[in-house]
């Protein structure tokens, strides 16, 4: 093992984990009440969320103080790296479930509904007029759904967003070069550009959703295409938002003089996360928008 120093830093007892649990519990409880149409739902959800924000400040605050106080050497750093790496892998598998749903419905179940393979009877007895198509706008059953007029074309805003995210991946790497060369201004400029690009991506995505809902009639209720489209791009957009907030925290810390050229795990963790949302977007652009 790479023992930079003999003692692994084991933090003393911490109240943050249990407070985090309680906050999330209150959020889930409030969310469930809200979905069940109880009047107390929104307030409870909001209280839990507020609690969680406070806990995150406290918990990360402790970790940052310990880090800046020199408590973490290479040995602790490796634990953090492994933690982040496998957390990102778990996120990849979360997206895999939704990509799986996209491929399954596109390749198998929509085709089966129009009688492909051994499914002639399914077609005959359920919706004999149904024709398989992708993107699926005309649904097997024509009532009870919001029928979309069209889908969002790939070579408009989504292509611009692809360029934005790819550029932001480059700017965050450029910022990393600045950090490693101990050029503070270079680091801060790189990060600020990345945050701005991230925020611009989220703005364009919100505009696109507005357009889809108001002009195209493409909603969550537009059958399997709308469902996969909004859940995939929605969870991705949520991750970009989180990533942008994380980048902003790192930018703020950089301005306060945190991080050293040889010791900056938090920066790298956020950069890895940012590259991960970038890669997921490439998958979305190809499989949801383009082909």
């Amino acid at each position, binding site marked *: 093992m790479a023992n930079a120093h003999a003692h692994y830093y084991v933090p003393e007892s911490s109240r943050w984990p249990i407070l985090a649990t309680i906050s999330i*519990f209150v959020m889930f409880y409030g969310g*469930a009440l809200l979905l069940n149409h109880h009047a107390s739902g929104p307030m409870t959800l909001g209280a839990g969320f507020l609690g969680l924000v406070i806990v995150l400040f406290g918990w990360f605050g402790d970790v940052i103080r310990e880090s800046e106080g020199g408590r973490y050497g290479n040995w602790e750093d490796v634990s953090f790296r492994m933690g982040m790496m496998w957390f990102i892998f*778990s996120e990849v598998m979360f997206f895999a479930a939704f990509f*799986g749903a996209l491929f399954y*419905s596109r390749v198998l179940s929509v085709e089966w509904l129009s009688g492909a393979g051994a499914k002639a009877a399914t077609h005959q007895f359920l919706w004999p007029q149904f024709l398989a198509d992708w993107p699926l706008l005309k649904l097997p*059953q024509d009532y009870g759904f919001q029928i979309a007029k069209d889908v969002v074309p790939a070579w408009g805003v989504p292509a611009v967003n692809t360029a934005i995210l790819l550029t932001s991946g480059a700017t965050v790497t450029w910022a990393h070069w600045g950090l490693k060369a101990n050029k503070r201004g270079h680091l801060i400029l790189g990060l600020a550009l990345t945050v701005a690009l991230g925020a611009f991506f989220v703005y364009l995505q919100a505009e696109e959703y507005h357009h889809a809902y108001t002009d195209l009639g493409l909603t969550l209720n537009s059958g399997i295409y709308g469902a996969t489209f909004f*859940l995939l791009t929605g969870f991705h957009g949520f991750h970009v938002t989180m990533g942008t907030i994380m980048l902003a925290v790192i930018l703020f810390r950089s301005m306060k003089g945190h991080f050293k050229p040889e010791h900056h795990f938090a920066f790298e963790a956020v950069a890895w996360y940012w590259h991960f949302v970038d890669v997921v977007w490439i998958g979305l652009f190809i499989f949801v928008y383009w082909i």
Partner: protein
Amino acid sequence: MSQAATHHDTHHEAHHATGITRWLTTTNHKDIGTMYLVFSLIMFFIGGSMAMIIRLELFQPGLQFVNPQFFNSMTTMHALVMIFGAVMPAWTGFANWLVPLMIGAPDMALPRLNNWSFWILPFAFTLLLGTLFMPGGAPAGGWTMYPPLVLQTGEAFPFLIFAVHFMGASSIAGAINIIATVFNMRAPGMTLMKLPLFVWTWIITAFLLIASIPVLAGAVTMLLTDKFFGTSFFNAAGGGDPVMFQHIFWFFGHPEVYILILPAFGIASAIIPTFARKPLFGYSSMVYAAASIAFLSFIVWAHHMFTVGMPLAGELFFMYATVLIAVPTGVKVFNWVATMWQGSMTFETPMLFAIAFVVLFTIGGFSGLMLGVTPVDFQYHDTYFVVAHFHYVLVTGAVYALIAGTYFWLPKWTGHMYDEKLGKLHFWLSTISVNVLFFPQHFLGLAGMPRRIPDYAVQFADWNMVSSIGGFVFGASQLLFVWGIVKCARGGEKATAQVWEGAHGLEWTVPSPAPYHTFSEPPDASTIEGGMR
């Protein structure tokens, strides 16, 4: 006892909180391990009470005690509580206690995250068990949550989904912690191929958790949006497919089965060599077999759905992949038997449970092979044969290994020997009654009795009554287990550091009970013999 072990870091000892705050805020792997194990034992009895209600209702044909809706809630909740509340937390509890001790680490790699992983569980189960008191009752569509049935759940529905999300976060955080601990915290000289098998099986389990739990989270999220936000993932009228849920669910669900059983393999591989006083036979083949089982677990999921109407190529692929798992599993069973061959065996309680594990788990494995063969499964699908199969695997498999492991390491945890007579009584009562409970369910299934049903045709009456009697005795016998644990925690013959004559490994070099902080200085590399010895 090694010098390193007794040298604590007094700096930490001074700050250790007392009372309830100690448990709420602890970052110590032993405290957290204890909390996991106690929580799991409580859940074992809550889930067990539900099983008692099920067996009570099935004692005779006709509806006696509960209404069908509540009966269905009981089968659903029994499964959720036992899988996510009893067995999985118990394994994480064992890992917390043992992995740092076995690899010579001062603690888990991410101690605050470790506290969080545990404390999620009581809150997640408050969400889940609270549904028993809600309008519309607790979820009753089966633990597999198949749509469209599960979408008929009342107010309990979002609580069910969020409880699953919450437990999943706990499992993922716990798994990440174990991976970081094993790969970053091993004492110098503790190479990967020296790791005790329990550590190996847990790393593999951790990878299964990280890869499969997020898929479950995705599946239940789609259920939530289908119910409340108008999506049609599982609605054919909108171009979706209810069967798609089953694919996504079982992509999680089959690795989950190995999450429940792989650490049990690790426990058997620790106990059998100890009481046979021989090194484990075929150490490296055990590691490779566990890894092969884990890999195969990702490509066999649709054997849970042979009867849904898959294309023939799918039926064949999933059948062949499924029966292939018998090869690495067979390697394991033969290795355990070969370890005992010509050993100088003694039969203390942990060994009795471990041997029963090998025999009875293998019965569950064989019935699994039968179910894995597609045309045969067409007959057995959704019958009591399936119930018998997975209870042999999970009760006499996973739970027996948990009990064996508890008796094996209890002296290390408490510093006292448990009551051997009580342990043996617990073993014999459990082992006779568990077979009376589950073996007749094979006959019921082969004769065509469907599972998840509160009433049945009269020709199934006799074996159901036998099964229920076995169930009541098995349930009552577990009170002896609790009594034995409580007795051992409160006192008894002092345990030595090594505890068992044939025990090897770093955890047996520290005093019993293990001090609050161990291996603050890494142990001497020459004391590390490794899993092969």
